[in-house]
């Protein structure tokens, strides 16, 4: 891959400092997998506390900050701004959005090279798909909205170092969706509804071979690949417009069971998103509106 020669590259390989390794190795807890509960004692359909606020980046048209567990995401929205006439491809369709998701080089235990990785591209693409249905782009012809997301922290500093940097990327998509939609609302861009993201881990019980789900998995629960007496087999990220109850984004991977189980998993995510929307997102939106008055 071509590297930016103006930048100091940093070492090719990076290692987790020994003290962190020693501290985290005993964390895979056989005791907690024996009992039915989750590692952090939540119920199966309970989401982690989520913090959301707006107006973090003052220069942007709208911005948002979302923090859930060890994941911290900043989103800034610029626009709608006119696209130069030479770049408008067709005059019939409405505006367009561009999504750019970047992981900070210091976002995880291992340093990431500055250049964009394929995983960041797929994160941007999935975000684009999840946001599009909520926007009324037909009302914004010949204009563009830029959505920039910077992931400040991708995992809990005390958690187990993942095998590869990208393994927890599926966990990042849900907070990205929530943050981006919040920032779009903060930028006072017309929308059908705000979009809320939620992830769900799918586990298999090794003795009965039955599948079961856990809402809003932490990176720990996925990295140890075991939880509540089950083995991690797949995950699912859903973007939902909670007021309309429609699914805007859906990414499911792994051994996800039959149609009935898939539908159950999606429905659980829709319910969880409605909860997040009711409690956190609405409050952040009201605060944002009040600050503008």
């Amino acid at each position, binding site marked *: 891959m071509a590297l930016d020669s103006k930048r100091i590259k940093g070492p*090719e*390989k990076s*290692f987790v400092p020994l003290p962190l390794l020693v501290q985290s190795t005993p964390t895979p807890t056989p005791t907690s997998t024996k009992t039915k509960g989750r590692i952090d004692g939540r119920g199966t359909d309970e989401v982690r506390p989520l913090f959301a606020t707006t107006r973090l980046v003052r220069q942007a048209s709208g911005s948002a900050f979302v923090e859930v567990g060890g994941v911290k995401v900043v989103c800034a929205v610029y626009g709608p701004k006119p696209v130069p006439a030479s770049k408008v491809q*067709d005059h019939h369709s409405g505006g367009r959005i561009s999504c750019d998701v970047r992981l900070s080089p210091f976002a995880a235990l291992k340093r990431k090279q500055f250049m964009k990785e*394929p995983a960041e*591209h*797929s994160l941007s*693409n999935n975000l684009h*798909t999840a946001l*599009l*249905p*909520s926007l009324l782009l037909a009302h914004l012809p010949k204009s563009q909205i830029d959505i920039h997301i910077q992931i400040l922290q991708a995992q809990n500093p005390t958690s187990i170092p993942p*095998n*590869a940097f990208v393994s927890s990327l599926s966990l990042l998509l849900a907070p990205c969706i929530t943050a981006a939609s919040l920032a779009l609302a903060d930028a006072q861009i017309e929308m059908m509804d705000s979009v809320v993201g939620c992830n769900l881990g799918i586990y298999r019980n090794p003795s009965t071979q039955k599948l079961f789900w856990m809402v809003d998995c932490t990176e720990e629960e996925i990295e140890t690949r075991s939880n509540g007496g089950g083995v991690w*087999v*797949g995950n699912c990220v859903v973007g939902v*417009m909670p007021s*309309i*109850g*429609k*699914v*805007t*984004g*859906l*990414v*499911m*991977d*792994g*051994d*996800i*069971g*039959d*149609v009935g189980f*898939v*539908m159950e998993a*999606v*429905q659980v995510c*829709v319910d969880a998103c409605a909860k997040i929307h009711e409690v956190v997102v609405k409050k952040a939106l009201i605060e944002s509106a009040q600050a503008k008055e």
Partner: protein
Amino acid sequence: MISVCERDYIIGGVQANARGDGRRRTDARPLLSFELGAVPQASGSAKSAALLVGVKVAIAEVSHVGAQADDDDDVETMNTRSKHLGISEDSIRKYSDFCSKLLNSDAGGLDLASLCFVPNTTCWVIHVDVLVLAYTGNLLDTMFQAIRAALANTLIPKVSVEESGSGLARSFEFDVADEETEELKGVNDIPAVVTLYKIGNYHVIDPTPLEELCSDVQLTVAISRKGLPCAIHKYGSGSVDPSLLADMIQDAKKHGLASLEWMDREIQREKLRLSNLE
């Protein structure tokens, strides 16, 4: 580009369960047959009327400690005539992304662990390149079928590994055979990919390029041999009701199993032809 009248005509047709070429909503066109081994210098290849897939294998070092996935399928759609064919760069990246993600996952079928011959350091990397010769719609499904056929045709050289020393001084030496080759493990378990296109309030499979332009939601489902979905991705600018999803996945399952059965017969037939040639 599609005009408003054409769009209305197609949406109305889909609603009435009658499509432009006489098919119903869940009818697929007859599947294209493949020719395996069409590219002699590739490790494996498949050619159909619309696609040419070449597979190359290479040895690579895995740098990160404790890696499990040891295969990095690099699916690149090199498309010299993409402008002319009307496929956007974006969708090509999207398709490459989906294929490599699926083949590298646990559900992808391929036995990735068997491709790693020196534990944690050295492994085979499989590069898959797809060349689109003609665009007749529903590219991802046909592309994945062709990739599946090419992987079934792929032979990798045998490697013998010698281990010396123990503990920290443990080292490995390997030797790649010139003549002897072996097939990839787990090719039969690679799932089939079915994409459902929502047009109006209904969904169709195997659309033509014009029908593709009318669809606002695409749901790509990978169906394993057991008939279970193992990856579901939503694309497109529209949203979908959860209740519609169940119908879509059910149809994907039906069509995916049929496509797997057909692929089996096709690969069997081609392998027989190749062995007769020798």
